[in-house]
């Protein structure tokens, strides 16, 4: 990956509290795994940015390398790679994702579970 692309990816990751690299858009996910993570973020009432990797071959190839992760979706929160669909869903189910999202968005973590 060349430096310019790396810097571009870094800027996307650092530029948003929560960013989801996915296939399609949040309204029209093009893949069930991406749709699952969109649904999880919706349930958490999270504000987040999405990047449609199907619309940008450089980002698609680059993020595989950047995250050392061969598949999409890829969820980043506060600049850290959280995981793909399986991890995100497991963390959500275990109640581990909400505090991370709340912290990123500067929200008080409610005591009730999602």
């Amino acid at each position, binding site marked *: 990956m060349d430096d310019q692309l790396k810097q571009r990816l870094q800027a996307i990751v650092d530029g948003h509290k929560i960013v989801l690299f996915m296939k399609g858009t949040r309204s029209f996910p093009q893949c069930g*795994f991406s749709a699952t993570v969109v649904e999880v973020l919706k349930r958490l009432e999270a504000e987040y940015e999405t990047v449609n990797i199907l619309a940008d071959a450089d980002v698609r190839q680059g993020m595989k390398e950047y995250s*050392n*992760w*061969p*598949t999409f979706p890829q969820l980043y929160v506060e600049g850290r*790679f*959280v*995981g*793909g*669909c*399986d*991890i995100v869903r*497991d*963390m959500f189910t275990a109640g581990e994702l909400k505090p991370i999202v709340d912290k990123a968005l500067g929200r008080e973590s409610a005591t009730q579970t999602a």
Partner: protein
Amino acid sequence: MVEPAVLEELIRTKIEGVTHVAIEDLTGTKDHFQAVVVSPAFATLNRVEQHQAVYRALGELMAGPVHALALQTFTPETWAQKRRLT
């Protein structure tokens, strides 16, 4: 297309101490799989690192022949726990 047995063999040879592997062909097309991998080697890794270890074991297969891989990783302890629960 990839035979599930090929994936299992790679996982067993490239990841240390694997005690259980189950690969399921989700679509019957040999490109969408679900995998459960159990190894004590996962104990010192976080979830992302555990999945990265499996992806690394599968190497180039992840860059084309395998279109999707739903993945669950466990240590023998967490695997035993899960089996008690389900």
